[in-house]
């Protein structure tokens, strides 16, 4: 009896050790079977990218889930991250506030489609105690402030364009985004367009070398700092500024009008001739009523969808989803402070979606 018991104990010990080693090796190399697991499940789509799109997408995908049952898992890891994940083929689609740059296009290896999905704007928010009137900013002044050349709020350049406002003798504290973001990209692209000096000294991009100022992490970081520091000015997304009752400046557009950013003026800015590949910057728009610091956001997918052994079913679902997003999905924009796409942009989006292929065959129409 004793022997039997001992043997059982020993076997148990062996099993324990074996289990431990198994776990170990599993953790090292074991889960190569998952890949099929991931692709086999056709009722889930995975997307990643722009944080700007995240609230709108989460609303759209929740509604789409209610009607079709398709689960879309979208995570806001940042536009650059979204592009990188698409190139690494770890996601079904990406979303970005900036089109792929040359290096990314090269790394992608195959043509990538940009489908415009929504438009947003970057607004200038400020904290001036005692100032209740809306501040007006011209492109030259704006560039001067962010270059650190205009240092005081009562600088003559500011007072001449704001004759009705009594500006205090305060230092200007600049607050910018510290994390790389599409918001920064739209804002710096605009500054680059309107100020030759900005283009020469600083440049454009998602993360740049700021000549002056403080960095806040995310919209709420910037907004928090602007609210706390008297004399601060910073840029945030329209969708963040409107529901949070922040003081927002009017910005002079190309036509010379001072425009207050809201959904109407952003939609107006987006109502322009859009090229066939939809890769266009809306900043410094020609539209008379358009807010000048606006930008498009894109869903990015490979034109040839038949990679990584993806099923035709899954690909069809992806294309249908995107089609729905630029049509029915647009109704959810305004309530969340996004600007709906113009007719023009939707038409271009349809054209681009039709060019997507699966194993060389067109997917829709």
């Amino acid at each position, binding site marked *: 009896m004793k022997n039997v018991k001992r043997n059982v104990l020993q076997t148990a*010990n062996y099993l*324990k050790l074996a289990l*431990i080693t198994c*776990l*170990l090796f599993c*953790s090292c190399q074991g*889960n*190569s079977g*998952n*890949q099929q*697991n*991931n692709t086999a*499940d056709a009722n*889930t789509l*995975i997307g*990643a990218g722009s*944080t700007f799109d*995240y*609230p709108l997408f*989460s*609303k759209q*995908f*929740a*509604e789409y889930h209610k009607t079709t049952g398709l*689960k879309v*898992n*979208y*995570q*806001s*890891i940042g536009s650059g*991250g979204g592009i990188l994940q698409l190139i*690494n*083929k*770890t996601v079904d689609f990406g979303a970005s506030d900036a089109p792929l740059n040359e290096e990314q296009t090269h790394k992608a290896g195959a043509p990538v489609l940009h489908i415009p999905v929504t438009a947003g704007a970057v607004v200038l928010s400020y904290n001036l105690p005692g100032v209740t009137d809306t501040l007006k900013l011209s492109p030259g002044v704006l560039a001067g402030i962010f270059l650190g050349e205009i240092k005081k709020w009562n600088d003559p350049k500011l007072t001449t364009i704001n004759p009705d406002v009594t500006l205090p003798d305060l230092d200007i504290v600049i607050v910018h985004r510290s994390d790389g973001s599409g918001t920064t990209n739209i804002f710096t692209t605009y500054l680059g367009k309107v100020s030759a000096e900005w283009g020469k000294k600083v440049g454009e991009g998602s993360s740049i070398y700021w000549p002056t100022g403080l960095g806040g*992490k*995310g*919209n*709420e970081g910037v907004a928090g700092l602007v609210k706390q520091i008297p004399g601060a000015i910073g840029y945030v*997304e329209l*969708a*963040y500024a409107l*529901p*949070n009752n922040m003081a927002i400046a009017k910005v002079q557009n190309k036509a010379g009008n001072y425009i207050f950013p809201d959904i109407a003026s952003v939609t107006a800015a987006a109502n322009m001739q859009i090229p066939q590949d939809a890769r266009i910057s809306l900043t410094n728009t020609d539209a008379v009523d358009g807010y000048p610091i606006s930008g498009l956001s894109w869903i990015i997918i490979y034109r040839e969808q038949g990679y*990584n052994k993806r099923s035709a079913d899954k690909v069809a679902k992806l294309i249908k989803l995107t089609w729905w997003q630029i049509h029915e999905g647009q109704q959810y924009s305004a*309530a*969340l*402070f996004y600007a709906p796409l113009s007719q023009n942009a939707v038409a271009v989006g349809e054209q681009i979606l039709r060019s997507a292929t699966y194993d060389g065959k067109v997917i829709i129409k």
Partner: protein
Amino acid sequence: MSVHIKYRIGKSTAFKSIVIFFASVSILPLIAILFYIIREGVTKINWHFLTHVPKPVGEPGGGISNALLGSMMIVAIASVIAVPVGILCGIYLSEHKTGRLAYWSRLAVDILQGIPSIVIGIVVYFWLVKPLGGFSAFSGSIALAIMMLPILVRSTEETLKMLPQSLKEAALALGMPYHRVMLKVILPCGIGGILSGVMLSIARIAGETAPLLFTAFGNPFLETNIFKPMQSLPLLIFNYATSPYEDWHDLAWGASLVLLLWVLLLNVITKLTTRKWNIQL
């Protein structure tokens, strides 16, 4: 003479009061933080909050069940992987106080403790996510398991070192094989200390956001397959706290409180188990 003694005693008392002052001031921030989080979060937590998935912006209600379940699963898998490795490595280090391998392993453990969590996230992304072509809760668990190891190894090593050498010698003298001495005699004796190490390591990783960003990825739906992306509490807090909408901020505050309570509860349980163990010894 007596003046001098009075001076010395006075100096001693003054020093004592300074020490007490600094020691008590240093717990003020913790109290302030607890107060702040509880004030913001307590009104948001109810049964509905714990059992439902988040709703999109603009719809009232919604909860954090997906993040709660995800966090628990990711942490559980991480523990299953890390605990055996950590404990066995701890045994090795306690048994080999000198030696080249022990020296380098010990150094490796120290280094591991100092590596920022985001770097571990990036590395696991390159190891698991990119080659396998997909995000998964499992890769998140691996990242967290790596972060758990230093505390596990350390606590096991320190606990076992404290056990009397005679215990091991007695067991060996009875003819027990080495592995059974370690697993059946030494480990059970030090189980309290090891358990507290396990709890501490879980408490440390439960609140980690950075290593999960590029591994577990997140998921708005309830997910139970560990080879799929999964939501977790810190990720949810990170995403929702940075959004522009009040509803989501409320969710984030509620989730912060839940996370804090979870971590604190783990700590309290650890304290109780270790105290019980000490009494028994």
